[in-house]
């Protein structure tokens, strides 16, 4: 609120100043109007140069922190880049050997399947629960705003904090979840959530769903608020209420927001590293190893930077496919 008043005050102040100037400096402005054109052109060029200077730091930073790594990673993926490189400075070219080695290893197929399951499961859970909550919070009731903003907390906590807390909750012997289930007599012995090869991935997906719900809720809630009331009023005259109203009014109107949420979700989930490293470190027996964690392992544990880079590039390509989808989706949402 204060924002708009600030702005209008400043505006009126500026207007006054402009008026005062118009009185005193009109001849000055005239002189500028009649200045010869070559000088004006050079001033224009200088002006444009000045404008660009504002952008230079950001462009430099983006080039150094995003552009350079991508290029460097591509170069490294064709080199035998190991710890020895740091001492000798030599990184012999090996062509496609890194890619061949990484893609043919049995661990790659495991990671690929895990990445797909992790991404799909996380997105599905986050989206469905987030949408359900967003629809629920469209209702008018006391404390709605406060409760909704408190729901953001899981999203704001550092991921490594969430991982630590969930590790303790999911602990086999004395974790809160197993004790809760034990007191309800649902299970008798501790469930090895994070230490069993068949359960660990499910547990990690569950935690990631918990983290992602607030993001989905917030954006979908915003999308729902944008749907004009008149549509529902018109719909109710035609007998579209409840589920019918959702299917024929809410869902089609929400579609652009939905596609943006889903694609952003996929792109962010593909990159996830913190949660998996914090909860299981990729184990037990690689059952939660994804492409991202395996790339980290290759580079920073086995010091095969070339192979890590090759695998990282595979991840970039997968993300890029979704990036194209995202850009198309957002363009469509602008069009509509």
């Amino acid at each position, binding site marked *: 609120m204060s924002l708009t008043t600030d702005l209008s005050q400043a505006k009126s102040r500026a207007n006054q100043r402009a008026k005062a100037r118009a009185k005193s400096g009109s001849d000055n402005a005239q002189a500028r109007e009649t200045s010869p054109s070559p000088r004006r052109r050079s001033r224009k060029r200088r002006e444009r140069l000045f404008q660009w200077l504002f952008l230079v730091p950001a462009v430099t930073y983006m080039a150094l922190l995003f552009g350079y790594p991508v290029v460097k990673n591509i170069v490294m993926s064709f080199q035998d*880049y190991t710890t020895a490189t740091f001492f000798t400075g030599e990184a012999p070219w090996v062509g496609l050997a890194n890619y061949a080695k990484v893609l043919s290893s049995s661990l790659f197929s495991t990671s690929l399947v895990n990445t797909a399951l992790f991404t799909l499961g996380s997105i599905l859970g986050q989206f469905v629960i987030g949408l359900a909550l967003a629809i629920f919070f469209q209702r008018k009731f006391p404390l709605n705003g406060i409760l909704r903003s408190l729901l953001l907390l899981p999203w704001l*906590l550092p991921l490594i904090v969430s991982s630590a807390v969930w590790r303790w909750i999911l602990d086999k012997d004395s974790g809160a979840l197993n004790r809760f289930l034990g007191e309800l007599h649902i299970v008798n012995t501790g469930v090895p959530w994070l230490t069993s090869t068949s359960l660990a991935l499910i547990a990690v997906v569950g935690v990631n769903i918990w983290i992602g719900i607030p993001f989905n809720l917030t954006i979908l809630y915003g999308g729902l608020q944008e749907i004009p009331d008149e549509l529902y009023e018109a719909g109710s005259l035609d007998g579209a209420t409840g589920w019918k109203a959702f299917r024929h009014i809410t869902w089609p109107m929400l579609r652009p927001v939905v596609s943006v949420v889903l694609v952003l979700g996929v792109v962010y989930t593909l990159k996830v590293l913190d949660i998996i490293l914090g909860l299981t470190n990729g184990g037990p027996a690689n059952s939660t190893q994804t492409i991202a964690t395996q790339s980290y392992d290759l580079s920073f544990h086995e010091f095969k930077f070339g192979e890590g880079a090759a695998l990282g590039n595979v991840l970039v390509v997968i993300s890029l496919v979704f990036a194209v989808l995202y850009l198309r989706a957002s363009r469509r949402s602008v069009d509509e």
Partner: protein
Amino acid sequence: MTTTKITVRRSAPGRSGTGRARKGSARKGSGPERAANGPGRKQWGYTVLAIFFLAIMLFPVYWMINASLQPNGTTLETSWLPLKPDFSGYATAISEQGGNLVTSLVISLGSVVLSLAIAAPAAYALAYFKVKGAGVVLFAILISQMIPGIVVANALYTAYNDLGLLNSIPGLILADSAHGIPFAILIIRAFMNGMPASVIEAARVDGAGHLRAFWSIVVPLSRNSLITAGLFTFLFTWSDFLFALTLTTTEAVRPVTLGIFQYIGAYVNDWSSVMATAVLASIPAIILLVAAQKYIAAGTASGAVK
């Protein structure tokens, strides 16, 4: 506080999701007389349901605080309620991780300064000057969000090794700002797009140079968006784990996220200190949520635009 006011007002004209149409008749009553009656029993029922959802979602946060207040040592059975709060976990946490918390704070503040110094002028150029190539820059920002952190870390490690930036605070500030700068540019630009050009033009005609107009007109006017961007940058940097993990090799510079990871990396027999550290590491997020709600709301709203 402001957020709630806004949402209450916004939801006043009888918005109620899918059940909206069904409530066509209730809408008639949703004028002033409805407000005089106050919320009905059904509305309070929804509140109870919402609190129930919130309780489930925030249970891990409760559990973190509860576990942090348990006595030190082997906590085989954490009690459901911290009836006898014990602060030995915090004593251990502060003595072992206090330095790391300070490191995180220094890096986060440094990153806020760097990010705003880079993002604010860029946002101004993109929003106001509409310079040629602005589209390319925005496109690059969007694409940068698709690049996995591990790819950046992989390349930065080798570069930092050559430049001697490993295990250094400036090195981490520089790398961590990658989380905040693209986001900050987008938020601040979205705000500056709404800023009337006449204000800046007036200052320019008054004889103020570009820098002066930017510093004394644009920056004060966009204060709120700068605060929002700064808060999020702080939070992003404070939460950073990947760069802390990959760009440090010794104990010399160790952010608290890495300290927690080291804690849980080994077999844990002292969960109360781990959870106490986790609570301390959550303080910025909790402060932001409580004290700066309107900024958070602004940030998440523009996150959607992104």
